Every structure is written in structure tokens, then in C-alpha cells.
């Protein structure tokens, strides 16, 4: 049985009905990059916290898999769990948000690692809500309606957060010195 060719819904059904973990392993392997990157952006580069939250998100997903009704995509459902864990985490330990007026040195990234580090550095200038909607929209390539489902924010608020975050980041990039 080739699990990599199965749809998300088929994998969920298999993971719930069978006693082995192959189907759930496939789900983790399929979405680990997306969820880990999502949380790295939200935590603005705190890789330890992000990976810990990502593991907790998959653990919760395993426990609550039977509640997944297939109304939204599995991608949205997993992002919702990860986002809620992130919200809980920042209640305990508030985020460090840097002054948006302060310029930063932006150098042309030479590798994928450097490019991600730069994106995480940019996220430090945004509020938690702006980070979430911006990451879901620009990085996870979700539609506005999917972002509404994940964040539970009104559509107008989602759009205004995206707009405000874009303006902030454009201004920051303009002010910053781009080193080639």
C-alpha cells in the first residue's frame, strides 16, 4: 500500500481505523515542513520553541484525529491546532516585538537557511496577529477564507492585518540597507 499517493482524507480514515501508525506517520511527514516553518515564523526564529510546539501540535492532532470531520482541509486543521498552541504559549511568555521604525541590515540571502533567517528577522517587527495572517497568506499560500477559519478573526480584520503588515515590511525594506 503506497501511502504517499493517498489523499489527506484517506490517510485520516486509515489513521483512525488501523492500529498501526503508518498512516499518521505519513501525515506527519507530509505536513511537518509546513507546520514547523509556520511556527518558526510566528516565534520569529525561536527554533527550539517552534519545534516543541510543532511536535505538540501533531501529538494533539493524533489524539483528536477522530474529531476531524473533513469540512476544511487537513492543512487548515493542523495550522489551527498549531496557532492555538502558539496563542497559549505567548500568554505564558509574551512575544518580543521590535520597534518597526528601526532599520535593519538586509543582505542578499546566499542560502535557503539565510533566506529563512531573514524572513524570521522581518517577523520580529510585526505583531502576533500580523505574523499569523502574513505567514498564512504569503508563505502557506492560504486563501482569505482559510485564514479566517484558522485564526477565527473576521475577514475584514484579516485583510487589514495583511495590508498593514505589507506596508510595515515594505517601509522596513526601503529604509534598510540592502547589501548584495
Amino acid at each position, binding site marked *: 500500500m503506497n501511502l504517499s499517493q493517498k489523499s489527506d482524507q484517506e490517510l485520516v480514515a486509515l489513521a483512525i481505523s488501523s*492500529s*498501526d*501508525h503508518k498512516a499518521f*506517520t505519513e501525515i*506527519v*511527514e507530509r505536513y*511537518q*515542513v*509546513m507546520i*514547523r*516553518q509556520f511556527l518558526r*515564523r510566528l516565534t520569529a526564529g525561536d527554533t527550539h520553541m517552534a*519545534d516543541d510546539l*510543532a*511536535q*505538540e501540535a*501533531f*501529538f494533539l492532532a*493524533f*489524539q483528536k484525529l477522530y474529531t476531524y470531520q473533513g469540512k476544511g482541509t487537513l492543512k487548515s486543521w493542523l495550522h489551527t491546532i498549531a496557532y492555538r498552541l502558539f496563542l497559549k504559549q505567548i500568554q505564558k511568555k509574551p512575544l518580543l516585538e521590535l520597534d518597526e521604525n528601526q532599520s535593519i541590515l538586509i543582505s542578499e*540571502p546566499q542560502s*535557503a*537557511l539565510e*533566506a*529563512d533567517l*531573514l*524572513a524570521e528577522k*522581518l517577523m520580529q517587527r510585526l505583531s502576533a496577529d500580523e505574523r499569523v495572517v*502574513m*505567514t498564512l497568506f*504569503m*508563505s*502557506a499560500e492560504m486563501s482569505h477564507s482559510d485564514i479566517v477559519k484558522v485564526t477565527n478573526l473576521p475577514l475584514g480584520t484579516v485583510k487589514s492585518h495583511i495590508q498593514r503588515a*505589507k506596508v510595515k*515590511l*515594505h517601509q522596513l*525594506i526601503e529604509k534598510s540597507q540592502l547589501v548584495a
Partner: protein
Amino acid sequence: MLEQLLKYHQNLLSDDFVKGVFKRIEKAYQTRIMILGACSILGMAIVLVALNSFMQISWYQTFEKYLFDTQFLVYVAVALLLLFTVCTRWLFDDGEFS
């Protein structure tokens, strides 16, 4: 430019991450087994105390002759062991881990 900057760049595929997830799942399962085990032992202790009290009042006196019948005691012991095995198996077999 912003879209290019913000997209995910690294492919963070890691077996250690997957192992970490399953370690958490297994740890939670072990904790649940321990709690269920402790509750079962407590429940059995309560049943034994209750039976003992009951036996001292009337059951023992009524069926005193059976208590001294070795063959009867063997049947009862085997039946109780079978019942205990079936109940334990039913309690712990939830199909999550094979």
C-alpha cells in the same frame, strides 16, 4: 520581492522530528496505562474488602461447607482468574498500539 522573501525556503524534513512526535504519543499512552492500572488495582481492592465484609456476615456462614471443598475452590479460582484476564484485556486493548 516581499513574496520571495517570506516564502518558506528550507525543506525541514527530519526523521528525528517524527520520532519526537511518536515519543510523546507513547509517553501519553504509558501514563494512561499507569492511571488505568492504579484505578483497576484500587477498584479490585475495594471489591475484595466489600466481599470480605459480606462473607463475614452471611455468605461465609451460608456457604461454609463449599469453602472447605477443594474442588469447588479450584473452580472458583479458575473462574475468577478468567474473569480478571478478560476484564484486563478489555480494559487495555483500545487498538492504539499493537
